[in-house]
């Protein structure tokens, strides 16, 4: 799992970066001071388990936090994004953060422990997430472009297609998740698996 921190006021020695490096290993912490660079990295690494910590304000020639989150959601509805900013609700419009499913908002005036707790919670959710488990399984397929499934409405899907359906939380993607939940319940009730 990688933690992507997009913030133009931090450097590698910032206490939060050091703390995250201790918890998750330095190589798994990616700091971007330019939001466009952070966004590019996310787009190229969607196959990894990612958690994003995102500041709101960036220089005028960079995308701001609102735009970065909106752009991320065009590619993946599931990546946990924690908004981490000195701004508060009275000075900014937070509606689009809610609509684009930001996971948490943490004010930068809070103790570092708060943001660390939120990252841990995001990690916990990722580990329990059915969609993430399905995505990981699909990524292990040898040929991800080969048609592997035909749906009832006569659409063909490769592993890459299904990954996209999951990420974008389409009807098909949600149906795959639903099937896994039904399967899990059935296996438990039939005594094939235990909690």
């Amino acid at each position: 799992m990688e933690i992507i921190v997009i913030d133009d006021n931090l450097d590698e020695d910032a206490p939060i970066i050091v703390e995250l490096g201790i918890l998750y290993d330095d190589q798994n912490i990616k700091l971007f001071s330019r939001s466009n660079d952070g966004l590019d990295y996310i787009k190229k690494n969607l196959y990894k388990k990612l958690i994003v910590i995102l500041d709101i304000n960036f220089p005028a020639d960079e995308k701001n936090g609102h735009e970065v989150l909106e752009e991320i959601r065009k590619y993946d509805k599931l990546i946990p994004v924690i908004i981490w900013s000195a701004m508060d609700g009275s000075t900014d419009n937070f509606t689009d953060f809610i609509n684009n499913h930001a996971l948490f908002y943490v004010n930068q005036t809070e103790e570092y422990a708060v943001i660390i707790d939120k990252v841990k919670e995001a990690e916990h959710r990722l580990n329990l997430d059915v969609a993430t488990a399905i995505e990981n399984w699909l990524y292990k397929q040898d040929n991800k472009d080969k048609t592997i499934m035909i749906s009832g409405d006569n659409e063909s899907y490769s592993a890459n297609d299904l990954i996209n359906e999951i990420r974008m939380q389409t009807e098909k993607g949600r149906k795959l998740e639903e099937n896994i939940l039904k399967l899990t319940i059935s296996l438990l009730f039939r005594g094939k698996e235990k909690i």
Partner: protein
Amino acid sequence: MIQNAILFFYKNDDKLGNYFLNCASHAKYLLNMKDTIKQTYVKNENCNFPYIDQVELPKHNEKSLLLIYSHGDANGFYKDDCTTPFIDKTINCETCLNGGLVYTNACSTGIEFGKSLLSQNASYFGYEQDIDVWLDYEKIFIECDNWGLYRLLQGDTLEKAKEEAKEKFNQKIDELYAKNLLVAGALENAKESIVIYGEVSNSFL
């Protein structure tokens, strides 16, 4: 007992045509185990409503088993264009449906079509949801799709055949889920989609 089977399938679909053909071939193999059942095949371009309604069904003057391997929705059965049904709720064959049985793997036909057969004193075995087919596991999907038919041919009632079909799905799910969760999930969905209507306590074959 039903001694006449009419088997419908459309193999010219570039995605699932081969699957429907293989399902029909498997059904034929099962039917051949009981040599008292006459078999008629309606396939490919003959899978159209006017031909079936006005030419094929009127030939059958006894209660029949209609086996249908095709696309489907709540109201009927389709070729690959999925626009004009070749069989739908308006199907009417007083002799072949009265006391007869429709057995199908077509998606969602249990929702409306299956229920509509009750008004013609016919029974139904099929699915009430959309079903996915995983191509590398085609044999398993075919075996599960046709296990209810196999049990009916062994003399099971419709109700018992449904339970046995679910048991077959469970057996395959248990073999698969540790290595392929998504395929097992698709089988679970299909298993839970099986519905029967009509004379559920009857043995038909």
